């Protein structure tokens, strides 16, 4: 190669390296800035109650005190809230995944009159904003006497047009040869669903499960509306409850931050383990949507 070509290749490589370095530096700096509030949350939660009200603020608490994390469980019935959130999130997730999977199977593999029209009208329900259905569903809950029961927390959320849509698109992409082979071997419709379609759909099912679990865990407005007694409240309501406890005095920020962290950590764990599926799911919904 000529001297000029070699030199320009060297320069290009050098420039690419500089760009890479700058990019990394930026990403790290940006990451740290984004995480600052979380560090602050952790730092506050480990301080003594009065040490929080100090100026200038200390980033590293001295001494590091874990008392708030223990106090959280006794100031309000936090354990009960945890149990409720777990129960509701698991029930809603299982419910949504099952109903969506069955519906998606019907819409993609079974033929019956009006199938596509039904599918599109089901889809159309996604266009109605949640705020609009809030009031009528609440009124229904009152009429059914479901207020302040697990039924109100779980049953309205057990169905998902979004999940059905996502699964149906995926099922349609599964080649039919496997099913034809199975049918020749005498497999029933349900058998095909259970033994072939579901195992092949593990990634998308993982995506739906993750989405649904997180949405249910973090849901605030609906449980706020339908729960009355303390025994039925879920974690987000429980966190807000802390505020009510401290209504007339200075809020115990160490306690509040500890509680907030305890509420956020399960979702973060679920997310970190499933983030691959999560990202794929978002991409699929965005590009096809």
């Amino acid at each position, binding site marked *: 190669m000529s001297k000029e070509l070699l030199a320009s290749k060297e320069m290009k490589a050098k420039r690419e390296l500089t760009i890479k370095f700058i990019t990394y530096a930026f990403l790290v700096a940006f*990451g740290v800035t984004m995480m600052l*509030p979380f560090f602050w949350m952790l730092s506050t939660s480990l301080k003594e109650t009065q040490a929080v*009200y100090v100026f200038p603020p200390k980033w590293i608490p001295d001494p590091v005190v874990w008392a708030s994390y223990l106090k959280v469980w006794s100031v309000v019935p936090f354990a009960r809230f945890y149990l409720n959130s777990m129960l509701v999130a698991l029930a809603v997730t299982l419910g949504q995944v099952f109903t969506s999977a069955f519906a998606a199977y019907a819409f993609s593999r079974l033929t019956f009159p009006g199938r596509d029209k039904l599918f599109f009208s089901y889809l159309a329900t996604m266009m109605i904003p949640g*705020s609009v259905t809030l009031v009528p569903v609440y009124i229904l809950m009152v009429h059914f006497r479901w207020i302040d029961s697990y039924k109100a927390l779980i049953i309205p959320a057990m169905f998902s047009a979004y999940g059905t849509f996502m699964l149906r698109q995926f099922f349609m992409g599964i080649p039919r040869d496997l099913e034809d082979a199975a049918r020749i071997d005498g497999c029933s419709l349900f058998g095909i669903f259970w033994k072939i379609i579901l195992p092949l759909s593990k990634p998308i099912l993982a995506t739906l499960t993750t989405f649904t679990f997180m949405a249910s865990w973090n849901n605030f*407005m609906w449980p706020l*509306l339908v729960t009355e007694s303390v025994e039925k409240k879920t974690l987000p309501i429980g966190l*807000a409850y802390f505020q009510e406890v401290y209504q007339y005095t200075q809020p115990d920020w160490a306690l509040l931050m500890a509680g907030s962290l305890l509420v956020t950590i399960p979702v973060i764990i679920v997310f970190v383990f499933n*983030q691959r599926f999560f*990202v794929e799911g978002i991409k699929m919904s*965005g590009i096809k949507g």
Partner: protein
Amino acid sequence: MDAQLVPWPKVLSANFIGFANFIKLLGFHAQDGAWLANDPKFWKFTGNTLFLMMVIPIQMFSSLILAIIMNQKLKGIAVFRTIYFLPTISSGVAICLLWQWIYNPNFGLLNSMITKIGSMLGADWQGPLWLSSMAWAKPSLMIMSLWVAIGGYNTILYLAALQNIPKDYYEAAEIDGANGWQKFWSITWPMISPTTFFITIMSIIWGFQGGFEQAYIMTRGGPNGATTTLEYYIYNNLYEWHHVGYAASVAWFLFIIIFVITLINWRFGGKLVHY
């Protein structure tokens, strides 16, 4: 905590009063020779909702920039992606409490930093009251929602769209002597326009329905109704004041607004999209 009484009697005995709620909500009446709104607070809250939605273009733009930066063959991008996504998936209530503490006028992180930087420069800076200040309440919420959303869904969607652009386009442009700016406008922007379209529509739909957790937990809609959005107004009408029918009429208004704006977006925005 005071037990909120479920409006059993009111809900179960609700009777049909026609459009009275809508007239009360949207109508005007004459008084002292001028037209006054029947429910002036409603228009204020609608204005609040729209104001808070002004953060949407900033969010979208920031997410795009972030996605462009992240769209390089670098090791460990997944780690960064995960970190940037954490605020989005965290419990809204936890985030609200955290930021309420950050915005604390005397001991919060923000004002402490402001005063510290000021003292380093030899000046005596006092940060604003943030959530208690009528001027800063809404911007405070906007800053918080920018922090939450910047590395979230939009960035992932843009990343996917960017990765779908064939490299040959860029190479061809380079051969023709295009610089970075031209490459962006002629190739990148049109190729990601379907994603931009999708994000715009979804953000507007969600924007209209937002602001509830912030209002309930951080400000209770104050100061003086400055942070009350339509969603919070619906909640108050339904649950606190037991005006069930009125809450439904506000919800209907929300529905129609969202529907009309989405339709307009679809028609006009659709023309700008390249496929």
